[in-house]
C-alpha cells in the first residue's frame, strides 16, 4: 500500500493492476480499480469540501481531514466497487465549474459526500450535479479524492 504522495501515476501501465482502497487500516475495502481512464480524469478543484487525508504513512491510523484539490472524476457510479453516497444537502460547498468539450463549461452543484461502503468512514470524495440534470440521480458526477485512498500496487 502506498500513499498518493508516494505514488507515481506515470508508473501506471495496463499490465499493472492498481487498486484504490479505503485508507482505514481495519478496512482497506476496494474502492475502485485505477484505470488509465481514471488516471487521465484527474482534475484540480479549488474550494472542495474537506476530505480524509492520508499522510506519509500508507494506511490511515491517525487520520485527519484537510483541504485538497486533487480528484479523480468518475461519471458512472457502477465503476466503483464499494462506495456510499449521502443524501443531497444544499450548499455543501460552492458550485464548481467543469470544462466540457464541446461547449460552455458546466456548473455542478456540490450536494453529496462519498464514504467507504464497508466501514462507513469518510469523506473520501463528493458528488455534484448540474441544475438542469438534477431530476435524475443518474446524472450525478463523482469526485474521488486522490489523497483519501491508498494505492495497492
Amino acid at each position, binding site marked *: 500500500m502506498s500513499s498518493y504522495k508516494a505514488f507515481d501515476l506515470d508508473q501506471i501501465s495496463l499490465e499493472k493492476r492498481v487498486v484504490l482502497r479505503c485508507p*482505514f487500516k481495519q478496512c482497506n475495502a*476496494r474502492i475502485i*480499480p485505477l484505470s488509465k481512464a481514471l488516471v487521465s480524469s484527474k482534475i484540480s478543484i479549488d474550494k472542495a469540501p474537506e476530505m*480524509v487525508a492520508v499522510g506519509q504513512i500508507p494506511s490511515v491510523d491517525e*487520520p485527519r*481531514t484537510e483541504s485538497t484539490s486533487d480528484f479523480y472524476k468518475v461519471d*458512472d*457510479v*457502477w*465503476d*466503483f*466497487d*464499494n*462506495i*456510499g*453516497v*449521502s*443524501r*443531497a*444537502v444544499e450548499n455543501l460547498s460552492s458550485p464548481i465549474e467543469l470544462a466540457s468539450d464541446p461547449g460552455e463549461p458546466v456548473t455542478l452543484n456540490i450536494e*453529496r*459526500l462519498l*464514504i467507504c*461502503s*464497508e466501514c*462507513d*468512514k*469518510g*469523506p473520501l470524495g463528493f458528488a455534484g450535479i448540474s441544475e438542469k440534470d438534477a431530476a435524475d*440521480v443518474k446524472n450525478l458526477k463523482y469526485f474521488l479524492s486522490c489523497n483519501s485512498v491508498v494505492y495497492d500496487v
Partner: protein
Amino acid sequence: MSTRAAPSRSYDMIMKLLLVGDSGVGKSCLLLRFVEDKFNPSFITTIGIDFKIRTIESKGKKIKLQVWDTAGQERFRTITTAYYRGAMGIVLIYDVTDSRSFENVDNWFQTVTQHANEDAQIFLVGNKCDDESNRQVSKEQGQELASKLNIPFLEASAKSNENVDSIFYELAGIIQDKHVDEQTTSGSAGGIDVSSSSKSGIKNNCC
C-alpha cells in the same frame, strides 16, 4: 490482445436492491452503521445515505449491488414508484419490538407487488432481534408470515451486525439463481454475455 472482443467489465452482474418498511424499523441502520467517531461524522449520520454500491462474490461471480434506502419516503407512496423502477430485489423490513410494523408487512407487500417489477424478489427481515427484552414478534411469527407470502426470511440486528451481510448475500444469491434459470429455460444459449449486459440491469429476461 485482440482475444478480448469487448473491454471487460469489472463485474458479472449488477442488481438494484431496495429497503422498504415502516419508518423507525431501522432501514437506514442496515445501510449506515450508527458508530460515531471522527470519521463517521455526525453530519453523515444525520444526512443519511441515499444508496451504496457494494461488490460481493457469489457462486464464483462478481456481483455489484446498489442498495437504496427509502427512509423518509414512507409517506410518499407516489414518489416511491420511482424507487421501485428497475429494482430486482426488495428487502421488506419490520421491527421485532414493534408489532404494528409487523402488522403493516401485508400492506407493504401489496404496495411492493403493485409497483415493483413482476420478477422482483421480495425478502422479509425482522430487524432489532438483539433486543430480546422488548420483543413483540416471535421468530416463528415471522417465519409463518414469510411462508404465507412465499418469500425468504431472516431476523437481523443492525446494532449487533447479526445477519446484516447475510441479507444481501442471500438475496443476491436468489436473484442470481433466478436469472440463471431464466437464461437456461429461455433456451437462448450463446449470444448472451452477462458481463456485457447494459447498465440498467439484466435485460435479457424475455418474459
